[in-house]
Structures are given as structure tokens and as C-alpha cells.
């Protein structure tokens, strides 16, 4: 609000940190030191496993590499589920969020209740409900469409995502100063025009960073689907450990999976931060 201030208390917290000026990225985030560290830990644990293992069997690194493609294919299921449930959740959440700023009181109330319910329910419980309450096939206009487990998982995860997106949308819309509404109204814009031409274009910018943040969280939460029996990265990694029955592989195997998630989510987090900075304080 007050970019020209000299008073430290009025500056946003980040402005107090020594570091790059506007536009530049944070050095801590620019250098992928965390990625390097995780990779190093993976190598180190693999090396430990290598020395600890029985000399007669194939080496730990060779074993890891053998399983890597399969674990990666499982990881791709995680990514697929995350993308689909994010899309579904965003669509539903946009409607829920806009309903929460509706002028119709009953609609606002219902949307609020739905949002609060799904936002404060454990994701895993919602996932269980989706898995066990949704039918395995649906009959549509005489057609029978199979509803496989992964699709149910998408729905199950989309529920909390929708509720969180709804909050992001509501917050974004409400963060637009009242003066914008007032001036649009005074220019004889209808409410719908005010929303679509004045408020939302500004609000969407502010919604993008928290939305991406939510996506990164969702991606990591997709490992929950292994609990309900889907062959995701976690399931396959566990299966590989069982098949090998070599305890020294436990740490490097999970680290490999972790690295895949990290390599996927970390750039999103970095990008989010860059966007946040770009959209920051331009009122």
C-alpha cells in the first residue's frame, strides 16, 4: 500500500530481508541446493546399502535402477491424479467461491456450508468415502461407463481441493477494494459486468499463487491413493521393497520416490514465489 515508506514496520516482511531487488529471485530458491542435497542423500544411502548388502547379490544401485522405471510409472499416476483432481476441483471450487459472494443469501449460505465441510474434513476420510460410496460403473443414457478406481480417487481428492479453491476465489474477490465495486457500479455496470470485467481480472492474478501452492500440496497428498489400493509410486516402491526383501534398500528406495516428487513440486513452488513477487503490492 505504501511502497514509498521508510518505516520498516510498514514494509512487507520480505522487503526487510537483504537480498535481490524486485524482479530478482531469492538466492535460496534460485540455487536448487535442496534438490542437490536430496540427490546427495539418495546417493549416500545407496552407497551405504551397497556396502551393507550381501556381496553375492546384485548391488544396491543396480537394484534401484532396475526398479526406477516402474516406480516412475507409478509416480506418473500420482501426477495424472493430481492434474485431474486439480482441474475438477478448480472447476467446482470456482462455482462454490463465486456462490459465496452471491447476493442471494440462501445460495451464499449453502456454498459456505459445503466449503467449510470439505475444507475441514481429513483428505483421507473423503478419499475413503469416494472409493466406497461411488459406483464402479455409471449408466448414462443406456450406456454403461466404467468408473475405475483412479477416477474415484480423482473425485475423492477433488472434494477438498474444490473447498480450498472456493476459499481462494472468495478471498481473491473480497481482496479487491470496495472502491472498485463502487466506481464500476457508478458507471452503470451491472453486477455481472462488474464481476467479470473489473473484479475478477484483478482477483485472478492474486489467486494464482495460492492456487499453485494448493496444487503442490495436492500432488504430495496423492500418495494417499496408495492406501486405497491404487498402483501409485508409493505402492510400487513398497512392492519393490517387499520383492527384494533387503532392508538396507528401504531408505534409498523411498528417497528415490521422494526425489521424483521433489523435482516436480519444487519448480512449482519457485514459480509461485516468483509470481507472488510480481503481483505483489500494485494497487
Amino acid at each position, binding site marked *: 500500500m505504501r511502497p514509498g515508506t521508510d518505516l520498516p514496520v510498514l514494509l512487507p516482511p520480505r522487503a526487510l530481508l537483504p537480498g535481490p531487488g524486485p524482479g530478482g529471485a531469492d538466492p535460496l530458491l534460485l540455487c536448487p541446493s535442496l534438490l542437490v542435497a536430496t540427490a546427495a542423500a539418495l546417493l549416500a544411502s545407496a552407497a551405504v546399502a551397497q556396502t551393507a548388502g550381501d556381496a553375492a547379490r546384485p548391488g544396491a544401485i543396480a537394484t534401484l535402477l532396475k526398479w526406477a522405471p516402474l516406480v516412475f510409472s507409478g509416480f506418473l499416476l500420482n501426477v495424472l491424479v493430481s492434474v485431474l483432481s486439480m482441474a475438477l476441483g478448480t472447476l467446482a471450487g470456482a462455482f462454490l467461491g463465486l456462490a459465496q459472494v452471491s447476493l442471494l443469501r440462501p445460495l451464499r449460505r449453502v456454498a459456505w456450508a459445503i466449503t467449510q465441510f470439505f475444507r475441514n474434513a481429513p483428505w483421507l476420510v473423503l478419499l475413503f468415502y469416494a472409493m466406497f460410496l461411488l459406483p464402479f460403473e455409471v449408466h448414462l443414457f443406456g450406456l454403461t461407463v466404467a468408473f475405475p478406481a483412479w477416477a474415484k480417487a480423482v473425485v475423492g481428492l477433488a472434494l477438498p481441493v474444490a473447498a480450498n479453491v472456493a476459499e481462494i476465489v472468495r478471498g481473491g474477490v473480497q481482496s479487491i477494494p470496495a472502491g472498485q465495486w463502487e*466506481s464500476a457500479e457508478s*458507471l*452503470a455496470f451491472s453486477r455481472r*459486468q462488474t464481476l467479470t470485467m473489473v473484479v475478477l*481480472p*484483478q482477483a485472478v*492474478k492474486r489467486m494464482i499463487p495460492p492456487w499453485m501452492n494448493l496444487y503442490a500440496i495436492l500432488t504430495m497428498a496423492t500418495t494417499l491413493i496408495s492406501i486405497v489400493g491404487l498402483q501409485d509410486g508409493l505402492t510400487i516402491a513398497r512392492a519393490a521393497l517387499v520383492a527384494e526383501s533387503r532392508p538396507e534398500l528401504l531408505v534409498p528406495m523411498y528417497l528415490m520416490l521422494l526425489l521424483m516428487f521433489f523435482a516436480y513440486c519444487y519448480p512449482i513452488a519457485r514459480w509461485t514465489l516468483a509470481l507472488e513477487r510480481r503481483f505483489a503490492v500494485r494497487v
Partner: protein
Amino acid sequence: MVRNVEKRFGQTAVLSDVSLTVRAGEAVCIIGPSGSGKSTLLRCINALVPVDSGSITVAGREVNDPRLDKLALRRDVGIVFQQYNLFPHRTALQNVMMAPLHVLKQDRTEVEARARRLLAKVGLEPKTGSYPGELSGGQQQRVAIARSLAMNPKVMLFDEVTAALDPETKKEVLVTIQELAAEGMTCIVVTHEMGFARQVADQVYFTDGGLIVEHGPPDALLGAPREPRTRAFLDKVL
């Protein structure tokens, strides 16, 4: 135009029994201490704020009527705010063009030509492509005036439009309003600029505590106020 208007926020009467008349082509200034209901009165005139009782007529249209077509009223009544309230995601030109384009559904080339003329008129020809964030307060306020004028309103309301500006930029905005009034635009100006009121207004109203204490031609009211409350206020500000 405004007759016996009352407006309450909860228990507090913001406006009580306020009446004023503005004829077409007149410029009226409303002065008075902060919190005396000046801004609320303006917002009542274009139905941004509903009134509790009384009657407001704008160009033959009753504002305090549940069947009022608010959008039609607001096409006739332009308002400029203290905080400019430009749309930050649109350029100056787009800000001016938006309402005629989307509300009045006018032809784009015509709207653009008029928007450019209006921006030239408020002295901002070189700034048409700038975003509000790149303009000074005075420039933003002039864009806001052009944006209201683009709707071809019958009445313009100005709500302390220079209160957030420094003396230098204040002047450029006041000159713009003065020119408008001289051209015969009906203006209702809420202001703390006594010099401006004296120069431009046909009538000056002094409000305090939600009441109109007195009104009259600027020289009479500002020069020789009848009411002690007006005198006390003017002694402080002049």
C-alpha cells in the same frame, strides 16, 4: 432536486431533513466539516446508498423508489471519488472506454475517438496508454473525470476529489472541474477548497451534523455567513 432526505446508519442519523435544489447547468458546492454527511448525500443521489425517507429527483427520475432503474439513473449521473478508483488492470484509454463500450454498447471506433478527445480535454493526451499505477494522483483523477464524462452524464458529482492530492496537482484537477462548470455541466462538488467554491459555485451549501445549516451564493455565504456555526467553521478554514 433533493427534498427532506433522511439517512440513518443504525442509530446515527447521517442526513436529517436535507433539502437542496440544483438547476440544470448550475454548479453547487457543498462544504462542511468531515462527517457531516456530504459524501453520503452524493452517494444517495446516484443510489449507491439507499435513503430511508424523503425524495431525490434527478432529471425527472425518483431515486427513492424501489422500482428505480439504478443503471439508467447512473448513466445520467457521473461521480468522481476521492480515491480515483480507476481500474488498475486497464490503461487510461481503456478506463475511459469501458463503460460506453459495455454499458451503452456504443460503436468501438466512435467510443475510442471520444475517449481520446476527453483525455485530450483533461490534458492527458500523451498518457492514453499508461496504466493508472504509472500516473500521478492528479493525472489519475483527471482520467477518472474523463471516464465519468464518457457516459455523457447530465449531472457530475465530485466527492472531495482533491483531498488526496498535493497543492500543485490539486490545481490541475480543479481547473478541469471549473472548465466543465463553465461549459454548463451540472456539477455538485463536495469540497474543502473554499477558494474554488467562491470562484466556481453558483450556490454554496454548508452542512454540519447531517443538516444543511445554511446556503446561498458563494460571496454571501463565505463572506458574510448568517449562522454562527458557519462562521465558526469558516473562521477555522479560511
